């Protein structure tokens, strides 16, 4: 070690604004996400892409489903990729960080309340959810061709649903990622995420469940229903859908709920 050039008098610590720490944490996550962009896209878009190919292209071509099905499917696929991306972008790093590598330690030492670190993680995942959803539209157009009754005239509504939905699911990802033991993370997919996707009204409109009323009301506990229905209302208003106000209120409640439990669970894991 060479002679040091550090000042003899050590500097007095100065207060760092919370926003500047938050932005530094966010820059870190953006930097890492940028490095992993191809993997991120594969992870979040593979399943929607497969669904688009099979249900949006092959089945209509075989005449197993009517061409109207594509119109009902597209908003749902958007919801699926948003949900998957938002959950995974926070749950997987949390499981890894708290379970094995303890990598998050350097951020937990940042001079901000511990909850700020969690809030930043949720915010970063929220952005990734919106980005994943944004990739679906052009892919869908490529796979399925022109989609009848699709309108982009309610782009503002689409954005609101995407933001609220991503917030809800990244907060859920925070909760799951910090509350589930690392060895059970596989269960998270089969017990929580898979049923959520299949009963999330992604592959069929909620009103279609009129034929099975029990299921129709049971699925209302599934937050994904509101994202799918909200997207339906905003992108393909001709397809029967839930009113936007119901969707927004439901997503706000769900977000608040997951946010509360996600932050609480993170804090419990972070501080011994």
């Amino acid at each position: 070690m060479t002679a040091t050039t550090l000042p003899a008098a050590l500097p007095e610590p100065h207060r760092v604004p919370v926003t500047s720490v938050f932005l530094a944490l966010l820059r870190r996550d953006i930097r890492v996400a940028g490095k992993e962009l191809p993997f991120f896209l594969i992870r979040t878009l593979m399943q929607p892409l497969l669904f688009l190919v099979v249900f949006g292209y092959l089945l209509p071509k075989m005449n197993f489903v009517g061409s109207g099905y594509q119109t009902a499917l597209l908003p749902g696929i958007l919801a699926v990729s948003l949900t998957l991306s938002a959950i995974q972008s926070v749950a997987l790093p949390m499981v890894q960080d708290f379970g094995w590598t303890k990598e998050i330690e350097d951020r937990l030492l940042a001079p901000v309340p511990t909850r700020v670190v969690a809030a930043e993680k949720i915010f970063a995942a929220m952005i990734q959810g919106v980005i994943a959803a944004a990739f679906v539209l052009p892919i869908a157009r490529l796979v399925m061709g022109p989609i009848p009754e699709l309108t982009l005239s309610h782009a503002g509504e689409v954005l609101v649903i995407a933001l609220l939905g991503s917030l809800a699911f990244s907060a859920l990802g925070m909760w799951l990622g910090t509350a589930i033991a690392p060895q059970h993370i596989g269960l998270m997919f089969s017990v929580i995420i898979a049923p959520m996707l299949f009963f999330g009204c992604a592959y069929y409109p909620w009103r279609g469940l009129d034929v099975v009323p029990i299921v129709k009301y049971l699925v209302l506990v599934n937050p994904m229903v509101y994202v799918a229905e909200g997207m339906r209302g905003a992108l393909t208003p001709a397809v029967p859908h839930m009113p936007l106000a119901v969707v927004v209120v439901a997503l706000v409640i769900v977000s608040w709920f997951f946010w509360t439990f996600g932050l609480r669970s993170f804090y419990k894991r972070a501080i011994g």
Partner: protein
Amino acid sequence: MPAIETRALRKVYPAPAAPKRRRRSAQPERVPAPPSAPPGGAPGEIVALKGLDLDVHEGEFFGLLGPNGAGKTTTIGILTTRVLATSGSAIVGGANVTTQPVQVRQRIGVVPQRPNPDRSLNVVENLVFHAAYFGIPASVAVPRANQLLEQLSISDKAQAKVDEMSGGQQQRLMIARALIHEPRVIFLDEPTVGLDPQTRLSLWEILRTLHAEGRTIVMTTHYMEEADKLCDRIAIVDRGELLELDTPDVLKRRAPGGTLVEVTLAGTASDVLEPVRAVSGVLRAEAQGPVLRVYADHGGRLVSSIIQVAEEHGAPVTNISLTEPSLETLFVARTGRKLD
């Protein structure tokens, strides 16, 4: 004002979740509560700290010495705001760890027991982002990071992935990270565990330099030699309690006189305690299970007599070791246990 002050610091970890009902048939015996369970406390609770009082002076190199499970890491955890104390208070750099954790974090740098670098970032990014979390702009952080990497002799790895570094290099990166925001107090939790002797020596050199710069350093270790060579003062802790606190020299003088001859017998040591005490030259002897501890001015000369006496009393010797008066013998005398 002391750099660190703890008063009656106590930490109790809750009992681990009760075993599942169906597993009980396989293990019919309930595991008894560990001896550290508090009187009247819930069974199975682990008391990691039992009311620790410590004062660390500004600019001091302070050692926390004790075996595994002594409460060293818990103490560091509380002082670095990563563990909540059950009761008591701790002040670090003038800020309370419980009520002002953010202010405490501003003042400290932490080198963890196992390197935990951000593996998604390269080496220099690890430092520059950590600086950013402390509000230091990249224009300041980048030169400082390069200088630290230079000082720690890992500048050739600046652009490398963390996974490409050896354990010792990662440990140096952790030290650089702990220093990038120029903290006044640095905590190191067993920083030399798992390092080869050469790397350990160079780490000692680094720590001496940091100390010379006027920083307060708190280091845990279970290596006597390390504590002896580096620290201004040493706190010896065991089972969550402070046993001794003083400079290494005073502590060594406090060690019971003479060389410690530790003899492990095939029988019970208390059976041979009296005859061994009668051996000329023995200052002190104590028995603990099969282990007999004898303190003598010239331990080496007594080895054969002790073996002879033991065998005459039907307790053959299975192991024998000699330790010069040191922190180690003090520790053994105070706790009845060896350090590692």
